[in-house]
Each structure stands twice: as structure tokens, then as C-alpha cells.
């Protein structure tokens, strides 16, 4: 067991570093809390400069990383796992801070520390986080692995359509391409509003299907848009395309 909290306790200025961090200072997904109880996660921005106070989602993972074959049998106690990639290759450490999810035997998930680079249909070796080892032996003939990046890797703005990935948080600053930053996941925050229809104070909110903001949750709205689920609550009726304070509850 560790002697120090897993969660960082940061001052209110910490998430407000304009431009972001050039170098990674914390593990992706590191959880932090400010004195007022807001929660933040450490993230890597994707290919577009972030827009502060917009809603962001996880990178859309390529479907070719599902159901990968175990390339070499793994025994209980092993700290690495070799898999065979699909048609799409992977750069080194694409899956760092991500997870290897076993589709078959016991469905165990293993947090990943690093991975080797691999082309398509090639061997990629995963190294698990320190202290993590294989819990149940894996066989080449039968076991399959689903690879999941860290949801905080290459974050992107909520699209102007139904969300295509998990909503992940709201950045409070402009950060450059491939910069690291804290994104807020819980608590009071200003956010872009998509409210062509009037809001009611206390109403639940869902990701907008129109822009990188939030929209009122209508349980029987139809067309499946409400299925993206609730991500927070509104304090008052916000103006369409402006910013309003919400209580975010992504975690």
C-alpha cells in the first residue's frame, strides 16, 4: 500500500496555465482536486488547439485494435504481453496509460505502461504498469485482447453532431497542439451552451449534438440523442452559443 494519496491536491491556479505543458509532468489521467472540490484529469491535447470552456471527448479509437490475437502465451506473473496488430500499426507508447482488456479468459483488464511500435499484422509488446502481472494464463489459440488508449490521450472537441466518443472534460485554457493540460471533469464550470430550447434551472445536461457544448437533457427527445446520457446540471437558463455556469458530473 502507498503512504501518500493517489489524488493530487492542487491550488486553483494549477489548471489555468495558458498554453499547456510542453512536456508531460504527470501520468495521463492523473486525478487532481482543487480546494473547492473540483476534479481535473491530466490530458494530452490532440491535433487542434484547444478552445477553453468547450466540451471535449476522448479520441476515437480505430476499430482495428479490437480482438487482437495473443501472439505469445502469457503465464501467471508475466509483466508483459505480446499481441498481433490488425491491419493498422501502432506507434510507440500509443497505449501508454491505456488498458489491455481481455475479451475472453475472465475478462481481466491490465493497465499499460508502454508498448513497442509495430506495423500492421506485426507483433506489439505491451508492458504493464509497475506491479501489474498476468492474473490468469492466456493462450495464443483462444484468447483475444481489446486495446484501449487512455481516454485522456489526444482529446478532441465534441463534434457538431452526436458524440462519437466518451465526453471527457472541459479545458479552462487554450493549449497548443500535442500539449499537456488539466481538463475539468467535476464541479462548477463555465461551458459553451447549445440551448435553442429554453433550459430549466436544475435540469440535467447532455453533450450537444450541434456544437462543442452542452444541451438540455430531454428523456423522451427521440432519435437517440438522449442516449448520450447526462453529464451535468444547469444552474440557470443559458443563452444559445454563449457560456453559462454548469455543475459537471463526468465523474
Amino acid at each position: 500500500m502507498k503512504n501518500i494519496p493517489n489524488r493530487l491536491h492542487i491550488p486553483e491556479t494549477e489548471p489555468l496555465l495558458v498554453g499547456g505543458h510542453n512536456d508531460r509532468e504527470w501520468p495521463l489521467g492523473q486525478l487532481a482536486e482543487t480546494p473547492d472540490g473540483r476534479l481535473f484529469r491530466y490530458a494530452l491535447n490532440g491535433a487542434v488547439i484547444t478552445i477553453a470552456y468547450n466540451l471535449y471527448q476522448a479520441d476515437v479509437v480505430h476499430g482495428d485494435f479490437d480482438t487482437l490475437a495473443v501472439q505469445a502465451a502469457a503465464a501467471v506473473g508475466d509483466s508483459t504481453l505480446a499481441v498481433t496488430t490488425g491491419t493498422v500499426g501502432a506507434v510507440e507508447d500509443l497505449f501508454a496509460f491505456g488498458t489491455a482488456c481481455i475479451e475472453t479468459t475472465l475478462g481481466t483488464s491490465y493497465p499499460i505502461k508502454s508498448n513497442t511500435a509495430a506495423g500492421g499484422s506485426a507483433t506489439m509488446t505491451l508492458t504493464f504498469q509497475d506491479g501489474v502481472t498476468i492474473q490468469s494464463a492466456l493462450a495464443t489459440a483462444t484468447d483475444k485482447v481489446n486495446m484501449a488508449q487512455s481516454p485522456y490521450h489526444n482529446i478532441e472537441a465534441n463534434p457538431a453532431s452526436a458524440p462519437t466518443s466518451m465526453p471527457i472534460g472541459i479545458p479552462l485554457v487554450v493549449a497548443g497542439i500535442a500539449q499537456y493540460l488539466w481538463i475539468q471533469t467535476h464541479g462548477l464550470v463555465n461551458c459553451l451552451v447549445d440551448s435553442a430550447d429554453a433550459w430549466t434551472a436544475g435540469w440535467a445536461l447532455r453533450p450537444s449534438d450541434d456544437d462543442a457544448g452542452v444541451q438540455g437533457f430531454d428523456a423522451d427527445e427521440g432519435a437517440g440523442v438522449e442516449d448520450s446520457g447526462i453529464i451535468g446540471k444547469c444552474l440557470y437558463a443559458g443563452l444559445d452559443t454563449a457560456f453559462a455556469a454548469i455543475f459537471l458530473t463526468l465523474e
Partner: protein
Amino acid sequence: MLNYYVNTIQGRDGDHFGDHVDKLFRLGQKMELPDGRLFRYCLAGEALVASTLQQSPPVAAAYLDEASATHAIDTNNFTISTTASASVANAFQDGYISYEDSTELGSGMFIDRHGVLSSGSPASANGIIRGGVRWPVAVATGKKINTMKNQWAEIEQCNSPEQGLLAGVVNSVIADGDWGWCQTMGVCSCLAEGTLIAGHEVRAGETTDGSVTAMEYDEDDDANFGPCGRTVEVAATTEFALIYLRVE
């Protein structure tokens, strides 16, 4: 940069009870008990009944969509303004000020303190942003600002259904104007309305103030407030059920 102290108070069982005549912590201060239950420090806006659901008062419209003053980049002061309502000094302490306009990047900041907002049209008061935070961009006159109190300021028994953000459940009586802890997550006792089903979600009641009722997603409008927990142990209507509260 990290704080030297944990931001969440590590409480012991029993710390969540009680009524404080004097303010002991910042509004909204989080406390965690050994079993993981979470609480927020609150100010009672009326006499609070134990084991009932509470809400924040509706955000005052008089402090929304008001004109801003100018503030230079990297300063930490702000100006509250209103054309309709006076306010005492620090009424919005631990509250939140935000900008509506995209050119200010939708900035939002917590309020450390501010002066008296005298009646008038318009009226204004100066204040300081909390926590060493400074404006990342210059603030220009004519932009629209919204000022609101802390979510746990002057909380009141939840309407049916809620008319503001949910604040949580108080575990013991808190007198009007006194301070105490309001539970926001974990197992708690709460007034029940109608038929609850073990394991199913609950939301704020629709006919009984301060209660929870079964969440039904195909129910018009009331379902749009979303769930606030799940039923652990059912109880008859008007009695107290055990729920797993998830206000946050």
C-alpha cells in the same frame, strides 16, 4: 505545484452531524468520511429538516447578464454590477463570476470577497478573485457577466421537483442561518415519495418537498432533471428510505 495539505477534509464518523453557529469552513468545502461518503459545508437558508433533500436557491436573475467593467490582463479584481438588487458585502463570497462572451473565452472565477452593492441603477461593487487566480485576458466594458452564489449557500428544502441545483441531504437539523454539513454522495436516509424499487434510480419528488421518488425516463419533463441516486432499501411513501445518493 501541489498543496501541502489535502483539499478534502478527512472526517471521522460523527463529524457530519451538528449545527454550527459560526462559519468554520469555506462554503462548499468537501469532507470525506472513512466509508467514502462525501459532504459539503453549507449555510442554511431556512430551518433544515433532517433526512430531506435540499436544493440551492434559484440563481438571482438580477445578477445575470449584467454589463462588466474593464480589468487588465493578469489582475485579480472584478466588478459585480446589477441594475435591480442591492446586496451586502461578501454575499457572493465563495460564489462564482463568469463571462458569457466568447472573446473572454468564457472565463469563470471563484469569488474571494467583495464590497457592498448598494441599491441603484446600475450599482456596482469591487471584489477579488479567489486563490491567486488572475484574468488570462483583459476584460472589456460592455461584456456580459453572470454572478452567482455558492451552490451550498442558503440552501433550502428541495421543491417538488427541484427549482435549483440539488445540494444534497442533511443528516441532522440545521437552524436557519447556521452552518453544517450536507451529504452529496453515499448511503443516506431520505424521505420517500410513492413506490421505490430497490436498485432503481431515484430523483427529486414531484409532489412532496424534500423527498425522492422513483426515476422513470419515459415520464415527461420531470425525468429531465435526471437521477440523484439509487434505492438501497425501500420504504413506504412519507417514510424514510435508504438511498445511495449521487448529487456529485
